[in-house]
């Protein structure tokens, strides 16, 4: 029985790794080799694709742009969501339940619905093709999620903690930053992970809102993928590189994932 138990996750992980391996395999081949020779590993190992990406500024600036707006978005989402989640977890106020559901509905709005109005709206306020425009537009789905997750974590903290602190003479600000935030650090970590993740992987809005200056790597890649079968090696190398930031983030939050999932809402 215990042997069979190992088998299922192993098969699943192999299934997950196969396409990733294939992408890596392709990224170390030249495009001619990809098209002409079918092989399970690179016969003629080359780093030329990676060299192109790291020397051509239109390519590597794509990564810089993507990371910039993702970090902006994570900071904005979490810092706006912290006080709101606190309010939802501690107080009743006029229209609180409706407001909470209204926030969640934005997580449910298909980005395709918003693509065109966003383009017009951000153009009219002169924010088109800036990092901040993408960071703000991603707040649409990340803030509701951040509020939702943080509210779960905060509700798990007993209210006595707040009351004891006030009795001890803490002001609200000092209590919030000195005691409360360290208590829910794991929750903040998980929230940042999710905000980073959803902002990093989104393409439709990021592509719609940019032209050249703030263009994300994901959009630069569509340039090669649209001409199907062309520059496959370069596409594979660029794709492989987009896996790295995610992998780094997972590594840092690995201990929180299971615990955080169990404690909070998500």
């Amino acid at each position, binding site marked *: 029985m215990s042997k069979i138990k190992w088998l299922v996750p192993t098969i699943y*992980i192999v299934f997950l790794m196969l396409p990733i391996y294939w992408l890596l395999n392709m990224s170390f081949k030249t495009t001619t080799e990809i098209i002409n020779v079918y092989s399970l590993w690179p016969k003629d190992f080359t780093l030329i694709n990676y060299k192109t990406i790291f020397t051509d500024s239109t390519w590597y600036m794509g990564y810089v742009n993507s990371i910039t707006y993702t970090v902006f978005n994570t900071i904005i989402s979490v810092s706006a969501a912290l006080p709101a989640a606190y309010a939802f977890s501690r107080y009743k106020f006029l229209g609180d339940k409706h407001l909470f559901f209204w926030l969640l509905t934005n997580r449910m709005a298909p980005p395709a619905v918003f693509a065109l109005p966003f383009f017009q709206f951000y153009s009219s306020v002169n924010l088109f093709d800036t990092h901040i425009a993408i960071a703000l537009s991603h707040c649409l789905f990340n803030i509701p999620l951040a509020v939702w997750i943080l509210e779960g974590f905060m509700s798990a903290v007993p209210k006595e903690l707040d009351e004891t602190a006030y009795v001890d003479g803490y002001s609200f600000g000092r209590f919030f930053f000195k005691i409360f935030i360290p208590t829910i650090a794991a929750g903040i970590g998980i929230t940042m992970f999710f905000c980073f993740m959803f902002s990093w992987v989104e393409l439709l809005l990021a592509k719609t809102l940019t032209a050249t200056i703030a263009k994300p790597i994901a959009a630069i890649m569509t340039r090669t993928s649209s001409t199907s079968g062309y520059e496959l090696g370069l596409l594979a190398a660029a794709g492989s590189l987009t896996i790295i930031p995610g992998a780094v983030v997972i590594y840092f939050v690995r201990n929180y994932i299971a615990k955080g999932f169990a404690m909070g809402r998500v």
Partner: protein
Amino acid sequence: MNKTFNQKAWFFVIPVFVLVAFNAAVPLMTVVNYSFQETFGSNVFAWEGTRWFKEILHSERFHASLGRQVIFTFIILLIQLPLGIGIALTMPKKGWGVPVCLILMSMPLLIPWNVVGAMWNIFALPDIGFLGNSLNTLGFDYNFTQQSGDAWFTTILMDVWHWTSLVVLLSYAGLNSIQPAYYQAAEIDGASRWDIFRYIELPKMKKVLTLAILLRFMDSFMIYTEPFVLTGGGPGNATNFLSLDLVKMALGQFDLGPAAAMSLIYFLIVLLICWVFYSIMMRDEARS
């Protein structure tokens, strides 16, 4: 938790309210605006009333893409939920296997969606892709760019690859929160493996599973980027899901009125189903 009434709590909510309103209300009003008007370019608009809504609701094109979307989402939920629960049940509970499983399984979740599409495109190409080449070597006539059946198979397999881990992570967290005492009690009572699952694990996972269903429903119903890169909606219209069709109409043909009306109908469908889920979730939470 007993909450106190305090209207000042609104001040805490203001930043979130402003940011989301700025992002949601303004564009949504634009969509509503368009949905009742006809555009002639250069900002000339004419009132059309509910014409676009009637047209969309009666158009075969909308029925077809909505039908495809519903079938797709249904298949996705049917595969990913049991599979995710099954994998979570067999995952190691302690030791070095836990971080290894968690890290490797979360990988697909953090890859940009168009890279997922591109990756699967390369992986499934019938001549140079591992999947396509293997299937053809095994004697299947597989070509996802030509045959609708294969295109569906590839899109579903890609989504299973991409998102099953989310269900796994959620179920795993739910399983981990069960106290060992429950299992000990079950052992004393001589419960079978199935009984343990049916009467202990499944009820304890109810909350996370509702969330998993909700998230998987929303995201698979709104799927755009991955099939756009993988199949582009083709061959023909075989994998032309709602979002793909909407973007084609809005940005491709610039039919703003009908596209806006379709957006609103689309949004209302998602909203309605999520509201039902959400109400059930909140009712259960209030009861416990």
